[in-house]
């Protein structure tokens, strides 16, 4: 904090000059903000304005810059001073655009602006410009786990982009699931017949690529380190271990078909003439080797009638089987029905479905099957009864309303079972069981064998697929630098898996490049700040290590936290969690926010001017508020908004401080949490909310009403709803009455 010199700049452009008394704002910065240099400018973001700031940096020794103009989300390029601490007071979207341009409103609008200037000055003083992380690694090699279509495509794409790849496949051959198919669903015009799988071509591309190193019959024995500097032990069949330096990882471990033995009522496991889709592929491949005739497994007679049972053990509402739709199996059954029709149109092929899900060009494929004479029957199969060499399929005909419909003398029944992700150990379940019973039941084998404190594999979502921010960042797992692609991430077909592979390859490359530069990956991509811990104050409480949604923090032998900066996403959850507040970022800390809270001028209880603190998530809530401003939607002049990185970064001290300072209420705005979360930091808002749920006790000790703190789930689209909620809350607080802490 040695030689800091703060300068405040107030912009008069965009109507600020007309709506606000900018001279008074300059005085506020000088008097209350205590900045030595404060100026206003007609048009701060134009060349002249920016030159003025640059000149002050060069000639006046300015190190800290407070800009009172538009939102921090606007004009980021003009106000880009990476070497300096910069704070922004949002006078445009946050003040004049949300206030009516009337004489009566002028006073409260001006007060709002003055507070934001005070807050900006206080904040910038508590900041330093981030120096960047030095603990980086420079490995540019991509590790791909899994040698199926997804894995091979990832490897080829990354290699083509110029990055070396290490590909690890646990079986003795490349190809994965697709390698076992006779043919695939078509992806080219005219989408009428099954197509070649293309696996052989992929395999030869991989084999011919000197940039791709392939380990067959191999597994990952250990993954250590962080993006840019992973150290991975590859164990081969022979027992030998090879160590590889890796920059980023793509896990493409695919799926296993849901076990049809769990479906005895559908004949699963009861007869060789009841098979799953893999079973049929094998029969078709065998037939293609011979005379082309698909034969009944029980006695080798040609199949004359076949029934496909869709959604077998899927979309199940009883809780016994898979609750989801795997998405690929309708097309797969259509394709398999064509195996029969294309060789002998006289074979009776019936697909019994409840809904046929053939999106996109699958529609053409479906029509083609109808043209070829495949019969589609809408019904729900109740029972498959194998007797001798045939089976009876009993079903509820949903169109004709016949609950006792049946197909008899069926030679072969194919069950369309779904995809179960090969995602390794479910570390959360492991933690839960460990807590409950103290004993761990047998789990699937780990895939990555991470040495991370939080577990050996990437975290999963509710269905066993790997967790990622499904909408915004589909490939990013909750382990920075480790990406999942293909059916391990969500159920999908080959075409989708190939797209996934390409996306994940690019993301992984971006991650290792960022890691080398010490920059954050999404959603704060490019951020150079990272958490710093003052270990002298640490009580080894482990909250940070447990809560970090990204497994960035390990522990040393003395149980002190060890931060792996390259794994960190800069969400600040650790900072919010730390009870002794020893974790901070250079440009975001308990102090930078705390100082702003304290800088607000709290009018006394007789003024009838309440103050409401809003802590708004910078990913969704803050942009939504900005957009409300852009749309000129008015809201209360009594709110003071501070953006936070994530609800997870909110330290309860801020709330207690605010209430003690006489704020009448605190609104917290964060993304949706839970299974359907929208939080950009996945678990951040959930953890934040858990922490805040304990605030009631605090309120009680302070003798305050529970209405004083309000938690709001916000989406970026809540542009109209947010101002409504704010105004409603402001009105409610009037009913509750002023805070008793004012003036203390």
């Amino acid at each position, binding site marked *: 904090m040695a030689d800091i010199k703060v300068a405040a700049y107030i912009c008069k452009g965009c109507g600020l000059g007309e709506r606000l008394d900018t001279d008074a704002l300059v005085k506020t910065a000088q008097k209350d903000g205590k900045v030595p240099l404060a100026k206003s400018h007609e048009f701060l973001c134009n060349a002249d304005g920016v030159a003025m700031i640059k000149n002050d940096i060069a000639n006046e020794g300015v190190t800290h810059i407070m800009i009172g103009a538009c939102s921090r989300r606007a004009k980021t390029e003009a106000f880009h001073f990476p070497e300096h601490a910069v704070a922004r007071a949002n006078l445009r979207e946050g003040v004049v655009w949300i206030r009516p341009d009337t004489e009566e409103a002028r006073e409260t609008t001006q007060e709002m602006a003055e507070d934001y200037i005070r807050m900006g000055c206080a904040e910038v003083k508590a900041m330093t410009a981030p120096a960047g992380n030095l603990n980086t690694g420079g490995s540019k090699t991509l590790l791909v786990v899994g040698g199926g279509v997804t894995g091979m495509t990832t490897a080829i794409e990354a290699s083509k982009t110029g990055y070396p790849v290490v590909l690890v496949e646990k079986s003795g051959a490349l190809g994965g699931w697709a390698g076992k198919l006779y043919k695939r669903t078509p992806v080219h015009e005219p989408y009428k017949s099954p197509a070649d799988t293309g696996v052989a071509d992929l395999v030869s591309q991989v084999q011919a690529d000197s940039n791709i190193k392939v380990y067959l019959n191999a597994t990952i024995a250990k993954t250590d380190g962080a993006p840019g500097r992973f150290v991975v032990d590859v164990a081969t069949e022979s027992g030998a271990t090879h160590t590889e330096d890796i920059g980023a990882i793509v896990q493409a471990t695919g799926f296993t078909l849901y076990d049809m033995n769990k479906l005895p009522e559908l004949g699963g496991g009861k007869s060789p003439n009841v098979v799953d889709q893999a079973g049929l592929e094998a029969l078709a491949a065998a037939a293609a080797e011979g005379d082309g005739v698909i034969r009944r497994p029980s006695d080798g007679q040609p199949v004359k009638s076949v029934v496909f049972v869709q959604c077998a053990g899927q979309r199940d509402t009883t809780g016994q089987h898979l609750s989801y739709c795997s998405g690929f199996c309708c097309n797969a059954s259509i394709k398999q029905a064509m195996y029969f029709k294309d060789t002998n149109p006289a074979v009776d092929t019936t697909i019994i479905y409840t809904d*046929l899900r053939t999106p996109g060009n699958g529609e053409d494929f*479906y*029509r083609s099957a*109808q*043209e070829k*004479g495949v*019969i*589609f*029957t*809408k019904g729900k199969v109740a029972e498959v009864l194998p007797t001798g060499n045939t089976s009876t399929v009993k079903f509820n*005909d949903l*169109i*004709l309303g016949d609950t006792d*419909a049946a197909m008899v003398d069926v030679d072969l029944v194919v069950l369309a079972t779904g995809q179960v992700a090969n995602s390794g150990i479910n570390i959360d379940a492991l933690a839960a069981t460990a807590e409950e019973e103290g004993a761990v039941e047998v789990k699937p084998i780990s895939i990555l064998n991470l040495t991370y404190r939080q577990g050996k594999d990437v975290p999963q979502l509710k269905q066993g697929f790997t967790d990622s921010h499904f909408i915004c960042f589909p490939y990013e797992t909750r382990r920075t630098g480790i990406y999942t692609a293909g059916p391990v991430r969500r159920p999908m077909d080959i075409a989708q898996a190939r797209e996934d592979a390409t996306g994940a390859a690019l993301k992984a490359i971006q991650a290792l490049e960022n890691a080398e530069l010490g920059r954050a990956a999404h959603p704060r991509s490019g951020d150079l700040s990272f958490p710093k811990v003052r270990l002298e104050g640490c009580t080894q409480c482990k909250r940070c290590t447990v809560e970090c949604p990204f497994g960035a923090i390990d522990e040393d032998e003395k149980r002190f936290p060890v931060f792996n900066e390259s794994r960190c996403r800069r969400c600040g959850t650790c900072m919010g969690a730390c009870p002794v507040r020893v974790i901070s970022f250079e440009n975001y800390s308990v102090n930078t926010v705390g100082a702003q809270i304290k800088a607000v001028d709290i009018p006394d209880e007789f003024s009838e001017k309440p103050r409401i603190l809003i802590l708004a998530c910078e990913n969704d809530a803050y942009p939504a508020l900005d957009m409300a401003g852009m749309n000129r939607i008015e809201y209360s002049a009594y709110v003071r908004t501070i953006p936070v990185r994530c609800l997870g970064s909110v330290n309860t001290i801020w709330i207690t401080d605010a209430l003690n300072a006489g704020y009448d209420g605190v609104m917290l705005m964060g993304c949706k949490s839970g299974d359907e979360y929208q939080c950009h930091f996945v678990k951040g808002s959930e953890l934040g909310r858990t922490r805040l749920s304990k605030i009631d006790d605090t309120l009680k000790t302070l003798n305050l009403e529970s209405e004083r703190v309000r938690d709001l789930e916000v989406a970026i689209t809540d542009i109209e709803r947010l101002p409504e909620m704010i105004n409603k809350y402001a009105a409610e607080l009037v009913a509750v009455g002023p805070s008793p802490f004012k003036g203390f």
Partner: protein
Amino acid sequence: MSANTAVAEKYRNNFLKEIEEQVEMGDWVKMCMQCGVCSGSCPTNFQSAWEHPPQELFMMIRAGKREEVLTSSSMWNCTSCYNCIVRCPRKLPITHIMHGIAEYAHRLGMAPKMQPTRFFSGLFWKNCTHTGRVNELKLSMGLYFKDGFVQGIKNGMAMQSVALGLVKAKRLNVMELFGGHKCKDQKGVHAMLKKAYEIERSRKTAKMAG
């Protein structure tokens, strides 16, 4: 062997195939995706008496419900409004299929005997092909007398007010009973139609044989 047993023999349990080969536009039935838009668009479906809307009929065909389909009165309730046709996402010529199935059921002698529309339909065709032009009075009289003389008088009485209105407005000519409109070249018309029937029958038979 009746016509019906002959085809039943030939197609065995493959009713869909039978429909494809014997019914006008029948090869479209397999393309229905059971969305139900036709049923929802069909005016007669909103009334109680309709057994099976097109979607359901098409499913019944695929399920091999031969007897039920061919003896159904459903096809005969079609008003040729073409609502279904313009809305079907699969572009099935539904109206024509409905007529086609009806015609086939009639051809096999399986259509419900006293289904009024079937009766009217046949009557209409006879009426218009007999002279080459429709005689509206004979057409109505024929319909009302389909259930016999006494019922015919009753039906005629029920429609009396309607008919009288038309007569008054000079839009129903009582003289039609004794002649009325006709084509001059009736012989040509008959010969031409006879030929057309011959050709059509022989084509359908060829399909059965092949």
